[in-house]
């Protein structure tokens, strides 16, 4: 079983599965509306720590602030 880590730590090109979003109700809901739900597979396209991260999510790109990506827990697949 691969270890959990924050999305912020994932390097460009890596494919990971979202496991948990450690945040309040509103933020979880917002991400879910964008299609970022536990279980979904995403690919990190660009990451400039500590800056925004671009992910490939369900066929479109989503930019997330660094702070957000620290609260999204993923595991490598």
């Amino acid at each position, binding site marked *: 079983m691969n270890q959990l880590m924050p999305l912020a730590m994932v390097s460009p090109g890596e494919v990971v599965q979202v496991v948990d979003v450690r945040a309040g109700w*509103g933020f979880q809901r917002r991400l879910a509306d964008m299609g970022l739900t536990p279980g979904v597979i995403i690919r990190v396209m660009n990451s400039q720590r500590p800056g925004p991260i671009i992910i490939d999510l*369900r066929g479109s790109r989503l930019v997330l602030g660094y702070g957000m990506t620290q609260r999204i827990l993923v595991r490598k697949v």
Partner: protein
Amino acid sequence: MAKEIIIALAGNPNSGKTTVFNNLTGARQHVGNWPGVTVEKKEGSCSYNGYSIKVVDLPGVYSLTAYSPDEVIARNFILEEKPDAVVDIVDASNLERNLYLVIQFLEMGARVIVALNMMDEADSRNYRIDVEGLSRLLGAPVVPMVANHNRGTMELFDEIVKVAENKAQVKGLKVEYGREVEEEISKLEKLISQSELSSKYSPRWLAVKLLERDEEIIKKFREVEHG
């Protein structure tokens, strides 16, 4: 006197709403190839088969919660103006994400027509979409289109007239949330049916929104209960 039909165009950002708007109305609204071009609603009108159709182009949204002004604009228009039909423009090459908004409109009880746009893009990715099956599952008409080549526009007009005249079945869709949530929904529905809000909005939908702690809906309840 031509009969007037009011329709709303809705959909995710970058799904081709403004292109469909231009095809329907003959207008030349600016179309950008980036999302979020439509920040406020635009209106146009056209006539078809003796009907005068008013078309309202809503901002592109992913969802109908109360987070951002564009989502609130889109949702309130559907809720308050109750258009004769809501044409939800769906990117056929990205169905999964786009269907989320369709489901939300259907849950609200809107009279939805799904315009399955960018079918050429879906074809080029070798996606085979069972249009009739999708229509059956959603309980709403589905019209395949390629808006930037103006394909499917007449079929969409026909469907709009049918839905507005109640000649097409928009059965709608009831999302089942599982036993525990359903128990809470039915408790709330009973209470809500005594509120004057239930004459304007679907009680089940209000119950779901309350469980989601939707701020706009909570505010509405405060207003009617406390004046």
